[in-house]
């Protein structure tokens, strides 16, 4: 169950181009699992920026001197995230969490590859720790367009058996994308499960590579959200259900973690014609009695 808390900034630090914020969050750490996120309000009651910003939970501390706290990673890309990145120790923010469906963990101690794009790697370190506690082998691939957009390289080296770095400009690690390195890493580690968090394009490729190799994939999507709690219907994407039917599904409550082979990656941003309730289907089947009535 999520809670809504008035939170205080305990500390802030820079990490490359990112800002790591530690926030008091009583009641949040206890129920947080890897892949959960928090929704943070921007400014106070007079703020003109109404929509909550969603952040993967990077880490939690259950009982420190500040009580429960959560860590989030902020990329200051717009006015809301810039405001958040400028917070100082002692400032107040308001957050809701933990939100969403977390990563599913394997029952058996299988080998897992974790793939993070940019600061999408944030939830993977907590995940790595829990996988290793279960006896899973963990290998990690961290990629970004350039070195300063990587997040958690050093931490990855502690959390995983191997860490492979890719940058598109070659400023650190292998030149290329995470999916260029993924087949080899999976091969070497004998991975049966791939976990990924990052931009949609990356997730689509990761899911494809995993499926090609017969591995199971769990992808945490980054979809624009307005509420984060399941009421606004902004953050939908086409996902195939257990019954084989595609629905427009809320990434905030039914995600953000989806099974990679269930998301219709190529159709994101559209309503596939075979989606439940799609306009095309409605036209074909007809809404009962739609001929009569007022049309103009």
């Amino acid at each position, binding site marked *: *169950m999520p*809670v809504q808390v008035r939170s205080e900034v305990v500390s802030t630090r820079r990490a490359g181009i990112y800002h790591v914020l530690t926030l008091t969050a009583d009641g949040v750490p206890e129920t947080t699992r890897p892949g959960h996120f928090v929704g943070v309000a921007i400014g106070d009651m007079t703020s003109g920026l109404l929509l909550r910003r969603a952040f993967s939970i990077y880490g939690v501390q259950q009982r420190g001197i500040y009580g429960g706290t959560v860590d989030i990673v902020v990329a200051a890309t717009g006015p809301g995230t810039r405001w958040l990145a400028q917070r100082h120790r002692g400032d107040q923010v308001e957050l809701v969490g933990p939100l969403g469906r977390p990563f599913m963990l394997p029952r058996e101690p299988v080998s897992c590859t974790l793939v993070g794009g940019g600061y999408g790697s944030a939830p993977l370190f907590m995940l790595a720790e829990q996988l290793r506690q279960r006896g899973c082998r963990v290998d990690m691939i961290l990629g970004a367009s350039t070195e300063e957009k990587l997040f958690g390289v050093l931490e990855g080296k502690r959390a995983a058996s191997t860490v492979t770095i890719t940058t598109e400009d070659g400023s650190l690690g292998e030149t290329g994308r995470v999916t260029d390195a993924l087949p080899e890493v999976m091969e070497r580690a004998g991975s049966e499960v791939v976990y990924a968090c990052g931009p949609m394009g990356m997730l689509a490729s990761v899911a494809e590579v995993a499926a090609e190799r017969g591995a199971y994939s769990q992808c945490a999507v980054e979809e624009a959200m307005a509420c984060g709690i399941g*009421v606004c*219907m902004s953050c939908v994407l086409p996902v195939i259900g257990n019954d084989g039917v595609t629905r427009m599904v809320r990434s905030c409550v039914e995600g953000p973690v989806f099974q990679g082979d269930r998301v219709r990656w190529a159709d994101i941003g559209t309503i596939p014609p075979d989606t439940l*309730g799609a*306009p095309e289907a409605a036209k074909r089947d007809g809404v009962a*009695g739609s001929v009569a009535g007022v049309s103009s």
Partner: protein
Amino acid sequence: MTRAVVVPASALVGRPPDIDMTSELGSLVMPSPVLTASGCAASGRELDQFFDITSLGAVVTKSIMMQPRSGRPTPRMAETPSGMLNSIGLQGPGVHSFLEHDLAWLRERGARVVVSIAGNTVEEYTQLAKLLRMYDGIDAIEVNISCPNVADRGQVFACRADTASSVVGMVRRNTDPRIPVLVKLSPDVTDIATIAVACERSGADGISLINTLLGMVIDTATMRPALAGVTGGLSGPAIRPVAVRCVWQVREVLPDIPILGMGGIRTGEDALEFILAGANAVCVGTAIFNDPSAPARVHSELASALAERGFARLADAVSYAHRREPGMPDPVDLAPEEPAADDSGPLDATDGVADAVADGAPADPDPGA
């Protein structure tokens, strides 16, 4: 169940004010004048994690249609100054799934329920009304004839008095007479008072004011419309003055009709504006996205705001801004062009206020009290 523990500032100042917050929308009597706005609370289940939804005046559901509906492609949302633009496109599971899952849950939970309905045709609204009539646990129906995110968006029913009336009339005729039928209007019209009067004559028991304003955002990075649906509905505090104006104008011509006011309500004082302008109850919508416990907070802030102004009952504050001070010249534009259908003669906005004062509103409320 774990609930949010945000304490409203007002609660820290002193004990909660002892105000009679009873609100009536026709035959629907509620212990609170604060409801959720349609489309901003799904069917209440998610918000129940953050506050007790049975304490609300009612949950107004997301608009229900006959068939499942996928809605529009993403991006569906763009943040705007003190507001947002959405083009969700009435995504929903269809009425049968709603009845089986959502209404059943709301009933079990014990919440008051206003079911919002939407249709492509008058016939679809009629079918929905007939179907809903067979179910218990519906406290009112809100007829959404003003969603801008429909296929024929230039021709929403709420844009014309005749089309608005025909929908309202059919829903009213096919709904249990004990259940109030509210009609939700669009502010994107030349004269909202004319539309409201037409709806009242067609049997509307109450008017919900307002739906979103049609708007548009261009993404300057892609240099294309920000929403996949190109245009969308603008909501949030940015539209509040428009909404208050609409409530005021409708109250002027329909002194007695129940009005459910909404549009950018974020605080108790915002809600009070609507009440003073003539709303009997209010909905909190977009503010929920910012603060999931906003409806409960707005209720307690509104109670405090009323107490500070010397009101003992919410009902006494309804339309209070329309009162005439002795010696004030009559506003010239109050009388409608034509008399209303009822036999009370030419409408006079002071009537309702005179009643309210006689019922015990303070003659001289002290804002500093």
